[in-house]
């Protein structure tokens, strides 16, 4: 149990300061919005208190679940390469984070989002449902059935194309566990030039954002299977930290 330096209270579950090399730069070269929206002043390091070491455990009681099938909501299957994505959500101890709310969204096979602000030329697929929302199971796992997203150009960016990617928003055990991230596909030729994928300085941290494809021989006949792991901040406090 870690002692709270403020009032001596013991916390069962804690989160330390992130390792900066494994997290993205806040202001990313070639991504102008980052330079207008990220604070110029140093971030304040705060002492841990109950307020940050608790958090919403059941946001799904306020947000309705939308399921984990983005390809099969319409009258017909969504257009594109059918895939299954198997994700495990763990904490820093490697313990599964069960019952965690996960939101997953991505572009359709043509690289167009189901969003009023996406005015790209690519067509909308009315059978593609662009937003999943589900809970992890007891082993911290969930499976998404979807189509592989397409790449798309970032407007007015001088030739920056986003590689195929999937967005995730996850809630963990405490307020400090909240994570928004993106996942990429192995060996995509656009991965090397993507300004967002390459924002973390650590090559290992970048490599962990790329899913693994399972051998097609072992999977379902109609879909490729990808695996991915997401690690949320937070770990059980140990006596060594008390």
């Amino acid at each position, binding site marked *: 149990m870690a002692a709270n330096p403020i009032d001596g209270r013991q916390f069962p579950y804690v989160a330390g300061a992130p390792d900066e090399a494994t997290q993205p730069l806040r202001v990313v070269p070639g991504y102008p919005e980052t330079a207008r929206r990220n604070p110029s002043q140093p971030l304040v390091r705060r002492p841990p208190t109950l307020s940050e070491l*608790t958090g919403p455990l059941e946001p799904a009681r*306020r947000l309705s679940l939308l399921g984990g099938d983005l390809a099969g909501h319409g009258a017909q299957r969504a257009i594109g390469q059918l895939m299954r994505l198997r994700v495990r959500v763990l904490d820093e101890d490697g313990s599964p984070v069960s019952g965690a709310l996960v939101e997953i969204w991505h572009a359709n096979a043509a690289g167009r989002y189901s969003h009023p602000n996406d005015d790209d030329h690519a067509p909308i697929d009315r059978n593609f449902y662009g937003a999943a929302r589900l809970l992890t199971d007891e082993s911290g796992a969930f499976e998404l059935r979807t189509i592989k997203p397409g790449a798309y150009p970032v407007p007015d960016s001088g030739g920056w194309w986003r590689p195929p990617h999937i967005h995730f928003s996850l809630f963990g055990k405490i307020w400090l566990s909240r994570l928004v991230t993106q996942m990429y596909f192995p060996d995509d030729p656009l991965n090397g030039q993507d300004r967002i994928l390459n924002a973390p300085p650590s090559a290992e941290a970048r490599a962990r954002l790329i899913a693994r494809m399972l051998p097609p021989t072992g999977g379902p006949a109609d879909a490729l299977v990808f695996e991915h792991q997401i690690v949320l901040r937070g770990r059980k406090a140990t006596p060594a930290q008390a």
Partner: protein
Amino acid sequence: MPLIPTACATTGPFFPPRYIDAGCNDLSRFEGRAARGEPIEIHGRVLQEDGVPLNNLIVEIWQADAGGVYGHPADPRIKEADRDFLGWGRATTDPEGAYRFRSVRPGARPPRARHVNFQLMASGLMRVLPTVMYFESEAGNDADPVLAAVPAARRALLVAHRESAGVYRFDIRLRGERETPFFEL
């Protein structure tokens, strides 16, 4: 060997509108029942550099209930928690950068003063950006250890202005003049 947390990334500009569920910015009611305590409203605008309002930004809040209790097992007082209060909500900004929550006034839990935790997510924010809102004219603000960690000259930027009874205005400036203090996540 501990695992290393996954690298964050921006939400991008296309966070699905259907993720903003009806009523998810109203913490004062939960599953049809009213939470205990004094209803309040928190509203404000989110501005980027040069005062330009930011549309489509996601604001999430987390706070104690009216008795200062968090509905979470790490709180030893969880049995006293208000079951009609989830403590969490989500809002999005409109084209004027405006967001709005309804809630109840959180109880103080010394040494923490009454406060509301904020997390911001938006296109161009590579990481979830946390800040904290305090209430105007609270005696406990001076003793709050998180507010005390902010350079003294900037603390007032975290104190919401009371516009009328129960209505608080908390503007957030992401960068530039009168920049809101933000915290490490």
